[in-house]
């Protein structure tokens, strides 16, 4: 069974100037262990697709199944718990909480789940796995380089052992060398740990890391 499945999904934003169709009858199935790229020009519906995959948004029509759960009819709390327990987010801007130290940022999702007892050790373990030295654990995110911050963000996304990682231009704010290192890390997670990864990007070079690419244009899947 696919980790993410879209069946004839449509998303319409009603605007005063007329409805905007962001997704128009999209069918997608992403299986466990896949590394899938989502590409397309701006305005093609990438962000909308990503938001719905991340259960941050719901479709206007069609059926979306995430980690075996149909999201139609879910309320805000259900969607939030779905994000918390099954999805790992990696953003272009890292989006770490500035108030929390590196290790606290990573343990935060576990604390949301009420797993205080294991949170600290698990967070350290994952941080080491993504290549953050122990000396940085008590630093604030702002004290780290961009590449290091993105590693921390990946650790935070992985800490709850999600069904898939949802990455939104994860190398977009990094220089190419650091970006490559991050892609190597994600690729390793996919290859060695079997993590399903869905990544939205503009960067054509990313295709070499991926199993396949979903190309969007005007809200439709073209490839």
């Amino acid at each position: 069974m696919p980790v993410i499945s879209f069946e004839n999904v449509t998303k319409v934003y009603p605007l005063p100037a007329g409805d905007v169709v962001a997704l128009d009858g999209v069918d997608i199935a992403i299986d466990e262990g896949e590394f899938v790229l989502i590409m397309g020009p701006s305005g093609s519906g990438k962000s909308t697709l990503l938001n719905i995959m991340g259960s941050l948004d719901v479709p206007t029509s069609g059926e979306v199944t995430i980690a075996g759960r149909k999201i139609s009819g879910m309320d805000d709390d259900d969607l939030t718990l779905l994000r918390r327990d099954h999805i790992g987010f990696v953003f272009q801007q890292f989006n770490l909480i500035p108030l929390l130290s590196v290790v606290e940022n990573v343990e935060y999702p576990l604390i949301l789940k009420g797993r205080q007892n294991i949170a600290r050790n698990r967070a350290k373990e994952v941080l080491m796995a993504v290549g953050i030295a122990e000396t940085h654990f008590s630093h604030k995110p702002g004290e780290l380089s961009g590449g290091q911050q993105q590693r921390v963000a990946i650790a935070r996304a992985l800490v709850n052992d999600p069904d898939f990682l949802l990455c939104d231009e994860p190398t977009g704010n990094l220089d190419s060398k650091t970006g490559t290192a991050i892609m190597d890390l994600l690729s390793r997670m996919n290859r060695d740990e079997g993590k399903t990864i869905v990544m939205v990007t503009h960067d054509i070079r990313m295709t070499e890391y991926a199993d396949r690419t979903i190309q969007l244009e005007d809200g439709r899947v073209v490839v």
Partner: protein
Amino acid sequence: MTFFDLAVRNIKRHWLRSSLAVIGIVIGVIAIATLGIMGNSIGLMFSDMVTDVGDTLIVSPAAGVGGGKLTDREVTDIRRAVGSNVVIPFSTTADKVSVGEKESVVMIYAIPAEDIPLLLEKESGNYPRDTGGGCMIGSQVAANSRDNGLKLGARASIGGDTLRVVGVLKERGLGFDINPDYAIIVPYSWYSNHYDEDDYDQVIVKVRDVNDLDAVKAAIEQKMNRREEVVNVMDTRGILESIFAATDAITVFLAGIGAVSLVVAGVSILNVMLMSVTERTKEIGILRSIGTRRKEVMRMFIYEALILGLVGAAIGGVLSFCAGYVTTAVFVGNPDYLFHPKSLLYILFGMAFGVFTSVASGLYPAWKAAQLNPIEALRYE
């Protein structure tokens, strides 16, 4: 790391802004507590000042009847109406009293000699008798003997007559019946002769059993006011009650003024927190996107308001105690009033209201934060 820790860190992040909000709460708590304590102290001061006259009725002539006096006959009627309860008629005037070279104008109470011991306690000397030309002086009159010459044994001359001061009264405090502390007490017989006067100004009725007060009052009114309003009967307990009701109302009013200042503090917390929600929109977006539920975001913000309130209430409570001490010591002159349970209760009430205001002010910003759309919040810069 918990939501509580996160709230503490958010407060510390903007410590100046948070401190100002806390100061608002502190001022509000102090205002409620101090004004409450002040009102309560005024009430306590009254009850300390006023002699315990809960057992007394005061019968005075109804306005305009008989020249505002009660005749001997009417006093006799009152005696009949009240049965075995004590009836003390008296008159009052003021006159020049001189002792040697010293002269002053003093209040004079004329009370039948045999009734004086029933009404007033003596400090020293004796009660005056109908014969013998004696009088008594009140405690404050005695205290001013250096100016007025009135002391035990002095010869006081009133309008050509000379009376000897045979006794000094105990301090009695403010009364609803008579206020003898600043007066001279003379036997009614002397007064009647001297001023050629047979009528009385008022009648004091001492009721033996306080529970009979209303019945005795009714009996007098029924007997005296059958045809027309001849007398007014005042119930001192009722006066006392209405005074306490008034001071209570003053207290509540004063505390209400304090509460207004706390509401202002609440508005400033509301403002601070709304600002904080706007500033942290992106952060809230992150928290929501990685799985923080609405109610958890809300809880985080309410914790912040709660912490501001608790800190403000704690500081305000301590300062209220100090301010209460100053208030009671300086304005009312008796710091003991601060330790009256009701005064202390005002401090607690101020603190509780401070916490409540703070949390109430945090509710709307917290709700607003929780309602943010995670997608839009994430995009916010």
